[in-house]
């Protein structure tokens, strides 16, 4: 079933074209990776999908309904986001932050019910942060912070989870830990990823972006070829297989 359909969206600021005629669709349960060099428009495209930005032209539909028609609350019940940066003004405890994921379900004066506490507990358990419940967010390490924000997004119980470079600033252990964690989630995921080997190892489908346009899309095997990598990322690559996971693995080199 198609959850999200992106139909030839473009985005420009004054005269500068940031995104150019992008179309793709997201089916239920897919893990879609968005890859591309810096400035290729990955984050901008994600921001349009979670409606922080409004496309200049084109249409995004969620459950066959125009995304722009959704009330903000209903949108947040469907799409949860872990964005690149999480500037937290003033300090909250982990529990408080994760509980904020329940905001879209709350009417005025509604109390936090047992159900909400249960969801928060489960989300924290899934994100592996149960031991941090009463800690302050500012005291946490980068990896812990990412997992807290992930738990908050999970508490939204949305249909689609959008991750903007979730492994940024994480050490190698936490990168794999986080990717393992999200892959196991029974949820549809669209993630912008920098590390191509992570993208190859975890995603069902990849969207390759170049200069604000969708260059190519398909399975990692279809997309991550020597030619594409040369043209989009300007690197020489040797495409191989990871002997342990049987997934695609890339080796990069320059000619010097």
């Amino acid at each position, binding site marked *: 079933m198609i959850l999200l359909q992106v139909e030839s969206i473009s985005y420009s600021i004054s005269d500068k074209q940031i995104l150019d005629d992008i179309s793709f669709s997201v089916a239920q349960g897919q893990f879609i990776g968005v890859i591309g060099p810096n400035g290729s428009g990955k984050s901008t495209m994600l*921001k349009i999908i*979670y*409606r*922080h930005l409004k496309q200049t032209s084109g249409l995004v539909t969620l459950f066959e309904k125009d995304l722009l028609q959704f*009330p*903000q*609350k*209903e*949108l*947040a*019940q469907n*799409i*949860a*986001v872990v*964005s690149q940066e*999480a*500037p*937290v*003004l*003033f*300090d*909250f*405890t982990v529990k*408080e932050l994760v509980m*904020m*994921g329940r*905001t*879209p379900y*709350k009417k*005025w*004066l509604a109390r936090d019910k047992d159900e909400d506490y249960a969801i928060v507990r489960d989300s924290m358990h899934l994100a592996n942060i149960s031991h941090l419940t009463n800690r302050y967010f*500012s005291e946490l390490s980068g990896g812990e912070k990412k997992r807290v924000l992930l738990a908050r997004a999970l508490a*939204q119980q949305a249909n689609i989870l959008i991750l903007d470079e979730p492994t940024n600033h994480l050490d190698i252990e936490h990168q794999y830990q986080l990717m393992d964690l999200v892959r196991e989630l029974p949820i549809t995921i669209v993630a912008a990823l920098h590390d191509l080997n992570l993208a190859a190892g975890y995603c069902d489908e990849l969207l390759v972006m170049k200069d604000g346009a969708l260059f190519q899309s398909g399975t990692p095997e279809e997309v991550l070829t020597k030619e594409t990598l040369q043209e989009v990322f300007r690197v020489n690559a040797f495409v191989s297989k990871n002997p342990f996971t049987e997934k695609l693995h890339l080796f990069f080199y320059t000619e010097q």
Partner: protein
Amino acid sequence: MTKSRFMLLLWILVGVLLISITFAVMLGSVGITPGIIWEILFAKLGIPVETSASRAQAIIIWEIRLPRVLLAALVGASLAICGAAIQALVKNSIADPYILGVSSGASVGATAVILLGAFSALGMYALSFAAFLGAISAVVMVFLLARVNGRTSVIRLLLAGIAISMVFSAITNFMLMMSKQQGGIQAVMHWMLGSLAGAKWSNIAIPFCTLLVVFILLFMNYRQLNALLLGEESAGTLGVNIDRFRILIIIFVSLLTGVVVAVSGSIGFVGLIIPHLVRMVVGSNYKYVLPTSALVGSIFLVWADMVARIVIAPEEMPIGIITAVCGGPFFIWMLRKRRYSFGEGE
């Protein structure tokens, strides 16, 4: 902060507030015992009690001291919750309720009444009316200046607030400069520094109702206020309609601040420091910050007004001087605390 500890804190603060109010009513040239105060209070509320109070004592307590002390509590609570809300609105720790131009606008109105006799048809309500009108006009201007492409920009709100405040202060200063009446100038100064001396039962009703309504509205939206602290983008992804919510907060806050300034002048510092002090104890969650700020703000102002009354008795010190003198050093002490980051996050 756990829920039970928070409730305990709340009850303690309610107790402290009641004791402070009792104490503040006792204070003055006519000696009054705490027992008499409560007897008169119960009698006025229609509960039959034996009272030993004389008629004079009853009048002093009921007509003069109690309204004033209650106004102090109302003003303190109002400024504190407005400060807390506005700090979330502009996501900035230096914000106070006057940052959108309320006090400078109110000053123009008040000065026009005191020096030029504007709105004299309104009699004793002219001052409050003009101050409120000035406050609201200033906020409306700031708000319109901050609108770009149908959205309210935070940085423009702050800068427009500064610009409008400058213009309005210039108008006030111009009126002061051109005035020949010494007494009038002094009255304006007194008003601008804040005073609760004008408190009567008739003029605390409006602040009370406004405080009640605005407090409930803000408290109902505590989740949205929390989300605002995470930034515009995150708040949006949590289902907060940012633009509409900002407009609501601006309306609530400027309404309440305008009403309070109209009756008491622009008492400084309360709206800035109380929310920070409260966050040091209960954390940033607005579910706890709002009620605690209201109580701490009212306790603080009840005491500040007591000091204002006695420090140069029988003259009265403007309460704004007291809040600044007490608040300043305390704020500096807070600045040196490491645990509390004033919202810097890291």
